[in-house]
């Protein structure tokens, strides 16, 4: 068994991947998001078996050893497994270690059914992506004609902060393609305490970009391109509760059991963030030879 520790979380797996590759946070991150690793923080241990690289997420059915070849082909990384291993160990370590730990903590909190806490890590990951991923992407493009126009359009308009920049970046359809951005996720609000309609209403009252809403089934559908906005909207409404500003913040009477509520949403958020993380890794290696 191979084990490795990053930021207090132990990751372990059994297969014959190259020695020392476990020191690379990117490698561990790919395995984690592909559902081919176990992790533990000492008190909570789980095996991550959901494949967050597909749209929507599915159960991982492939053998763990196939995860890297699958990743390279799914994301069109255009590089061979060996050269991928060679270059993955040294680059952007700090950035991907941060991202790895956000996802690691997310899975651990989810396992504990602490979905509100788990959500925080997803939001933190999104904030880290917002600035870095567009830059990472542009740095991989050597075709300056295109990049200039992209940068110009990213920075040139009235953009509100880093998150706004990221939204614009995603919307261009160059990082994730238009077909992927148009795929819809279904979010079902379910509750063991009969709160599903409250959750449904709390969400639809504060976000209007769902492609479909069904109040009887407490179910909404949302395009991938709008998922980060939904994540931000919910974060802004739930993690603030100043009453004076008239911001329509989420009170606990509209979301009576916040863990249950975030449990309905988190997997979808995690899926989209995982796709962004994996795409950013694949994008990087498109240029390596």
């Amino acid at each position, binding site marked *: 068994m191979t084990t490795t520790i990053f930021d207090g979380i132990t990751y372990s797996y059994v297969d014959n991947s190259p020695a020392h590759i476990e020191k690379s946070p990117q490698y561990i991150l790919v395995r984690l998001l592909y559902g081919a690793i176990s992790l533990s923080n000492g008190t909570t241990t789980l095996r991550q078996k959901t494949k967050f*690289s*597909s*749209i*929507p997420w*599915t159960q991982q059915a492939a053998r763990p050893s196939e995860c890297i070849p699958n990743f390279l*082909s*799914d*994301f*069109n990384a*255009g590089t061979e497994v060996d050269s991928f291993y060679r270059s993955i160990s040294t680059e952007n370590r700090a950035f991907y270690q941060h991202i790895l730990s956000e996802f690691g903590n997310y899975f651990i909190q989810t396992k504990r059914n602490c979905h509100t806490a788990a959500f925080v890590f997803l939001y933190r990951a999104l904030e880290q992506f917002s600035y870095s991923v567009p830059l990472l992407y542009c740095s*991989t*493009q*050597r*075709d300056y*004609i*295109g990049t200039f*126009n992209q940068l110009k359009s990213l920075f040139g308009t009235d953009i509100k902060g880093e998150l706004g920049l990221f939204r614009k970046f995603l919307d261009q359809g160059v990082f994730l*393609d*238009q*077909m*992927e951005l*148009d*795929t*819809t996720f279904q979010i079902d609000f379910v509750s063991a305490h009969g709160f599903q309609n409250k959750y449904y209403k709390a969400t639809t009252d504060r976000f209007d970009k769902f*492609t*479909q809403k*069904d109040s009887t*089934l407490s179910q909404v559908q949302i395009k991938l391109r709008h998922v980060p906005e939904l994540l931000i909207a919910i974060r802004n409404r739930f993690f603030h509760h100043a009453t004076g500003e008239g911001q329509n913040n989420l009170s606990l009477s509209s979301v009576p059991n916040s863990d249950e509520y975030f449990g309905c949403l988190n997997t979808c958020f995690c899926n989209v963030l995982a*796709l962004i993380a994996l795409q950013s890794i694949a994008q990087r290696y*498109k*240029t390596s*030879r």
Partner: protein
Amino acid sequence: MTINYFSLDTDKVIDGYVMSASTTYDFALKHLVPLIGRLDIQRDALNTKFYSGLEEDIIRGCVMPPITVAMIHTFLAARKTTTSVSNYISNHIDSGFILDGIQRLNTLHRASTRKGFDKNRRLHINFIIAGSRDRLLYRMITLNNGQKPMSARHQIDVLADSFFLFDGIDIKLIPEKGKGRVRAPDTFKKADFVKGYIAYLSGSVNIDNQKIIEEKMDELIASKIIDSNIPTSTLEFTDIVDLVNEFSKSEKLKDWIRNQNNFIGFCVGAKNSASIMKSTSLISIEKAIDGFEKAFSSVDVSKVNLGKARREAVSKFIDGFKKYAKTDEYELIEKISDWI
């Protein structure tokens, strides 16, 4: 009476009767729509976007395939005449079950509130009358067992097979099975052709993506086709096939179009420029394609997903063929890097 009965048949297995009939939308709305949900084993009404396409079509006057209504009743041996069965149906219509067609009726219901709805148009119905609920269930299960909605891709696959007969023209489709064999000149992989057709229908070149699971992909393609202007367009896919056949007269273009990505991009782009291209000489098209290839070769291939980039660029180039055919190389390079 507002139901017209056509013919009666006996189902010997479930000891029941099958009657084909038709009625008006008006009658269906009053008597059949309320039956939705009577049978607790039935599916929920789906309120999906897919049916909004049908809703439009109902207003525009489409004919829907027959819906199936089931009833439970045992007739006395002497009374199985068309009249007695039809009388029974007419008198007991409100105790029927919608066996097949819930989504169609629901959509009809939504369409009925819209302007331009003609309540006198006809709805076709098959009635199944069985002796017991168990037998009815048996019929439902034997009919629908293993039923999986036919995906858009599969339907197109089947259609492409039977609609486009390439006898006598210069494209020979080879099925996937023959893939391993020699790539003979003039042949075209059938799978590529179907992909081109799907791309044409959906107006999108990104029709295969390993990340998106198949079911979602089919859903996406279907929604793109529904959003497209196929029913009102004067162009047919055969027009594009004709163009491709024209191309095969030129060695250069023949090789060019046989590339899967070129073909797919072409199918999408030619939607807007087929008529212009038809009236352009092959020599000029050859020249334009040469110019395109020259510009495209400046794209740094290791940086982008080449296949995807090629499809995208070809579709945009062909789409604006009139404009771009004469654009000079450097301007075209800039355009291409904008597109991909």
